[in-house]
């Protein structure tokens, strides 16, 4: 579904990604962990071209995302993204946040989108917040709305960029719970996170990125119980 070929990214003279070739299949839940500054967020943001790679190729459902003639906007409609800082639209109500893109991009009529929004709000457990503004919500609620907003586009894959890092500890659970449910429903997910419990429980594959390359990857069981890479052992001993 998603494939990167020798993906490299540098910011000025600082090289962040040093050649990542990887395949993510439909239905997989890939969790990416790694120390800060390792390039894991950059890798994720390259997947939907929020960062333009310096070299290498990214393919999504048979289209080269960073190809010269690719309509990136079209492809992004199928790749939902959830941000660390939620990035809800503060001038719109919760419902409008969810319906804006499907309606304006003419994927749904406004009635259909409204119906979908009601469904999604029920789905994320916030059916009574349709007419609230983002500033009236708690962090956890905001992130659940952000997930609903991404889901409204019926994406084929969801990208999560540290979705719980900006949350109060109390609210992490509700967001992870929702993500877990999505995973169980079969959504393809790529998640950058520091939540090792989530990785162990939900991931089909865990990746350790350090110094801009994938140092190790495995099933969660193997990954956490028998790490091979020295750096990973060191990392896990600190975070577990």
């Amino acid at each position, binding site marked *: 579904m998603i494939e990167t070929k020798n993906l490299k990214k540098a910011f000025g003279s600082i090289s962040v990604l040093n050649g990542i070739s990887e395949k993510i299949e439909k239905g997989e839940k890939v969790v990416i962990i790694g120390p800060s500054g390792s390039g894991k967020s950059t890798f994720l943001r390259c997947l*939907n071209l*929020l960062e333009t790679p310096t070299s290498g190729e990214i393919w999504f459902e048979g289209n080269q995302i960073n190809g010269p003639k690719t309509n990136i*906007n*079209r492809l*992004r*409609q199928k*790749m*939902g*993204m959830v*941000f660390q*800082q939620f*990035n*809800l*639209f*503060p*001038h719109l109500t919760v419902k409008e946040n969810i319906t*804006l*893109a499907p309606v*304006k*991009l003419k994927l749904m009529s406004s009635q259909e989108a409204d119906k979908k929004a009601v469904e999604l709000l029920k789905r994320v457990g916030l059916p009574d917040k349709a007419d609230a*503004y983002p*500033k009236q919500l708690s962090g956890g609620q905001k992130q659940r709305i952000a997930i609903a*907003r*991404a889901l409204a*586009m019926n994406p084929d894959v969801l990208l999560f960029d540290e979705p719980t890092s900006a949350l109060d500890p109390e609210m992490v659970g509700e967001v992870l719970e929702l993500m877990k449910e999505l995973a169980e429903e079969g959504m393809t997910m790529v998640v950058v996170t520091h939540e090792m419990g989530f990785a162990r429980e939900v991931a089909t594959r865990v990746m350790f990125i350090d110094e801009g390359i994938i140092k190790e990857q495995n099933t969660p069981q193997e990954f956490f119980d028998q790490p091979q890479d020295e750096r990973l052992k060191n990392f896990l001993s600190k975070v577990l």
Partner: protein
Amino acid sequence: MIQNIMDWMQRLGPRLNDAFLVDDRYKAYLEGLKYTIEIALMAILIGCLIGVVIAIIKVSASGVRGLKWLNVLCDLYITLIRGTPLVLQLLIIYNLIFTARDTNEVVVGAVCFGINSGAYVAEIVRAGIESIDKGQMEAGRSLGFNHIQTMFYIILPQAIKNILPALGNEFIVLIKETSVAGYIAVPDLAKNAQYVGSRTYDVLPPLFIAAAFYLIIVLGLTWLLKRLERRMGQGDRDKKSKKSLRKHFRP
């Protein structure tokens, strides 16, 4: 000394009467007012249009290699407009471009004031756009909107709230600046006041009256903007970004 001032004040009444009511002269002011408002409204519209377009180009093109020349062009426009006197711009545009016999001075004036205002509006709008968190653009793009769609659906609606005070200030300045339209023979409020003065052989009273007209328009507009601001402020308000905009106010 005091006696002199008292005398002058006492005589002002009849003089004002002469300048305003006698021979239905108030009609001249109203006629002029019509032109002033016409020009100002058209100019505000043109200015906003130019300003928004230039601002979007400036915040969008700077990162794209092939569009750098567009950015340079916009900078040139803003530098030229802000660096030269309005009256000269007015005369130059009038004489350079609109030289045909049947030139409509009101339209020329509106276009010229609009082009002038556009440069200031562009800077105000640009600062407003830049005050919005860049995560908003990313969120919009990640949903499949293109750059321009994200601007119009997500960034600008938020920016407008921040820029309204500065924009209102610009409108006020613009309305008053249209008083130089007389240079290209538009019989606007200021020009007609001078005309009345030349009829009554008493220059000062009509100028007072015209000034009062401008003051009333500006006060009305200020009141309107305050209300609009308050209504928009009922949503969320970001005080700090508003403060940072203040330096873009026109002197």
